[in-house]
């Protein structure tokens, strides 16, 4: 972060190693790579396990909550935990790679859709409904097959493709009975015919680092569901769309999912906690290293 500090004093660079906190639920290969990249650069880095946090909402600063870092990278898989933590960090003036607002817009598929549509980015037609009967109407509007997704969570869980109204009603009734109110928020999306693949693009700070095709015979082409990653050249169209999608939600670090439609590329969603395990196998770009470098460039500077 550069420029004047909030109190008007000119900031001075740190005279000690940057303290980077990595907010995690647990360590995946991506987080291990990030920690290793930070240590290689001589950065003081520590994982922050979300389940161990006690966030003092009444405190004017971060140390009492064990969050006294110069910059924090959110790699937490629990969306609600990351949202609250990022908002607390924001209050305490601790920079985070993705803002709380960007994460909020990406962790909720309906918010994500609204932001993409607002920015004029090609996106599958999506409707939202709050009752089984109205969700059935939404399915009729987008036509069958219709795709039903939960608004929170990812990894392809609880995705369903309804081929007709009977199937749609059965799926919707089951979702409604799942217990959490989130499952009775019905996110209905048109089914887009596409090759047996989608495209994962990784962006850090306005730069597309790499892209990969995720191929699978199943219509859900998600790496967490076993899709295979193969290299994808970053075309000007991919780059333009990925950067515009990031800008639409204000993300500095994200995995963007694109699909190839008959009318060109479309953005399915932007993931601020984007995984890149598959991408790591298809590119020579040191994704973890770039993320760490970007985090360091944003690190808090002390006022003189």
């Amino acid at each position: 972060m550069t420029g004047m500090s909030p109190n008007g004093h000119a900031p001075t660079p740190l005279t000690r190693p940057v303290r980077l906190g990595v907010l995690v639920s647990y360590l995946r290969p991506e987080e291990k790579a990030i920690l290793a990249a930070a240590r290689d650069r001589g950065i003081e880095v520590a994982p922050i396990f979300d389940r161990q946090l006690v966030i003092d909402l009444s405190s004017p600063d971060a140390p009492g909550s064990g969050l006294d870092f110069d910059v924090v990278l959110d790699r937490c898989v629990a969306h609600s935990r990351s949202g609250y933590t990022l908002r607390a960090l924001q209050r305490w003036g601790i920079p985070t790679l993705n803002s709380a607002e960007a994460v909020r817009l990406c962790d909720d598929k309906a918010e994500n859709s609204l932001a993409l549509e607002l920015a004029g980015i090609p996106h599958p037609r999506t409707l939202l409904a709050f009752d089984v009967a109205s969700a059935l109407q939404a399915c009729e509007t987008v036509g069958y097959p219709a795709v039903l997704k939960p608004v929170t969570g990812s990894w392809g869980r609880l995705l369903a493709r309804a081929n007709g109204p009977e199937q749609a009603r059965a799926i919707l009734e089951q979702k409604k009975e799942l217990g959490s109110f989130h499952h009775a928020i019905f996110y209905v999306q048109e089914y887009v015919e596409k090759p047996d693949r989608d495209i994962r693009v990784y962006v850090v700070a306005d730069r597309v680092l790499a892209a990969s095709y995720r191929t699978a015979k199943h219509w859900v082409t998600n790496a967490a569901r076993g899709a295979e990653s193969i290299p994808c050249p970053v075309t000007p169209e991919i780059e333009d769309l990925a950067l515009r999608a990031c800008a639409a939600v204000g993300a500095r670090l994200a995995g963007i999912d694109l699909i190839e439609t008959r009318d060109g590329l479309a953005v399915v969603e932007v993931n601020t906690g984007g995984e890149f395990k598959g991408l790591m196998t298809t590119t020579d770009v040191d994704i973890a290293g770039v993320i760490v470098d970007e985090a360091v460039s944003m690190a808090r500077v002390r006022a003189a």
Partner: protein
Amino acid sequence: MNVTCPECGAEWELSGVEQGEIVTCPDCGVDLEVLSTNPVSVGLAPEEGEDWGE
């Protein structure tokens, strides 16, 4: 260092891991979390929450 799977009792050698890392039991396939590294110990991985994702 040998660790024991709390699910099936399998024993195997585990090294080069970090606290909080998820590993898989080579025998029963259950996901395990590395609880400590000195000595290395593992426990069942946290259960996936409804709002979990990337």
